[in-house]
């Protein structure tokens, strides 16, 4: 792993009696795509919320780019971008308005915001529909706008929480290509997904969470090797072996 850009140490977070995150520690290297995998309720989203300064951990600390999320949250927020699992968009606004609105909130000025908004929409193949209301977009287009917003302000670290849920193969492919391009340009990415083949294809390393804990962490190849021939074993086999076949809520 290259020089660590994100370091999470012994994170704990409980809601009432439920331990959502229970002693999670890991580091993500600069320019790395790190996958955070786990069944529903494993604690992935809570972990991302802690890392992105939305939630404070009960115990533990996080540094991103050398800044503490506890004491220097404003500086942390200036170098991160978050693409949440939900389509957190203002549907009554145009895609361009959505991007410029969030751009202003990450500290960009008006002119700069508009230029980057158009560039991001072009990156997502949406420049022709920039001035269309988001409510008229397809699910795949909304997912791409969701990601385009996360890229406003030139973040150094991007949190992608299941960015490809429920979209068509073309939109999914576009998002993959974009993530790979971003990495080529020096961005660090934390990626959560339920699609194991996505993690296998994109991620340099993955951590598998269950019950609020990290139960395995390595490269996809190394994890598959633990079960047998990595050419025949899939990451999904590893995932099911580690987390079991019981249905989760």
């Amino acid at each position: 792993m290259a020089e660590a850009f994100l370091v999470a140490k012994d994170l704990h977070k409980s809601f009432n009696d439920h331990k959502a995150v229970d002693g999670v520690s890991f580091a993500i290297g600069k320019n790395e795509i790190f996958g955070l995998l786990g069944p529903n309720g494993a604690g992935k989203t809570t972990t991302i919320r802690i890392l992105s300064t939305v939630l404070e951990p009960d115990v533990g600390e996080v540094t991103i780019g050398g800044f503490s999320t506890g004491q220097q949250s404003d500086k942390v927020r200036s170098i991160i971008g978050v693409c949440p699992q939900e389509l957190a968009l203002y549907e009554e606004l145009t895609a361009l308005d959505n991007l410029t609105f969030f751009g202003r909130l990450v500290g960009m000025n008006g002119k700069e915001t508009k230029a980057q908004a158009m560039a991001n929409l072009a990156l997502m193949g949406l420049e022709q529909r920039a001035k269309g209301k988001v409510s008229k977009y397809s699910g795949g287009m909304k997912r791409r706008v969701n990601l385009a917003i996360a890229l406003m302000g030139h973040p150094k670290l991007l949190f992608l929480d299941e960015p490809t849920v429920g979209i068509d193969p073309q939109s999914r492919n576009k998002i993959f290509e974009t993530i790979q391009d971003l990495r080529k340009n020096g961005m660090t990415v934390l990626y959560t997904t339920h699609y194991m083949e996505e993690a296998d294809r994109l991620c340099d390393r993955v951590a598998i969470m269950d019950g609020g804990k990290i139960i395995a962490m390595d490269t996809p190849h190394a994890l598959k090797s633990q079960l047998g021939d990595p050419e025949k074993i899939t990451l999904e086999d590893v995932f099911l072996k580690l987390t079991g076949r019981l249905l989760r809520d």
Partner: protein
Amino acid sequence: MRRALIIALREVKTYLQDKGDLAFSLLLPVVTFALIYFAFGGQGLFHGTAYIVNEDTNGVYAKQLVEDIEAEENLDIELLPLADAERKLEHSDINMVFLIPADFSDKLRTGQPVELTFMQRGNGGQEGQIVASIIRGIVSELNQDFQVRGQVEQALAGKDVSPQRITTTTWQFLERERIYPLVGVKEVAVGSEPNMVNEFLPGIITMYVLFAISLGAAAIVEERRIGTLERLLTTRLTVGELFFGKFLASVSRGFIQTFILLALSYAVFQIFTPLSFLTCLLIAFVFAMAGSAIGLVIASVARTQDTATWVGVTVTLSMTMLGGTFFTIQKDTFLYYLSKISVNTYANDALKIIISDRGTITDVWLEIVIIAGVCIVGLMVSRLLFKALPQGK
């Protein structure tokens, strides 16, 4: 502060762009006002219906009594068979019926006492009571006529005056007395007549501002559900700025709505001077702040959009009723004291003082201070409860 303004500006822009939202907040108040204006406007005097059961169908005096009631310009009459009247009373279709018994004329002719009856549900209702009061006046006159005639007949008994002449002369005398009474009553109008615009406009404006603000609160709950509030907190926006931005947005929206409605009233009804218009805008601004603070309390405690909507609508309607939007609350009644807990009361009172009584800001300072106080308390409570995430910041 700059980021809070960005939040507020986005919402104002959305409000102004959304035709449905604009229609709701501007067109509906105008339509409601127009309906009330045309339903009640111009009816300065009471007008009601007297429901009469006349069982003395062939009686001269019963006929005369019905004609006298019909001659009252404030009354229409509707003659009903007894069975119909009883059924309508039973179903609350009507609340009071005036019953003339079958032996009414015969008894009067022979100088025997006779009883008329008001059949009523409960207290007969407001209209019924007024109708009964008018009929009592007519019956009282009839009673006096017969008493005078009896006295005159008694005084002239045994003298050479025919009964026909006594009757004719007595009626002529009484008729002249009715036209030129010894003791007269006159009505003097003081001030302008009750104005429906002045009466209803303030309440309707404040009601719709409260509706808009409480529905805005529901939108905040929805934003929390779909994750946009959480996403805002991953930018450089703080929870305090988010809260203040939402407050500013709500105030702006409420104020813009009030401004447009007051300006329309200014142009259409010409009820303002420039100074009274500005004073009303100030009241509207402070009221929009108080309403927004209440909206944020709702947004802070409601867990779902539906809950927020229902709580908002319930609060708005309760405040509208307590604030005397659709009826005047009598002083020193239980409702009067209850109305004092509703901020709407103070806003409506202040606007009425400025619009109807030609008051100035010095006449409404207490109302403004109370509304501002509600705003401050509401903001403190909502800030304590406000969270962008159900279990987070």
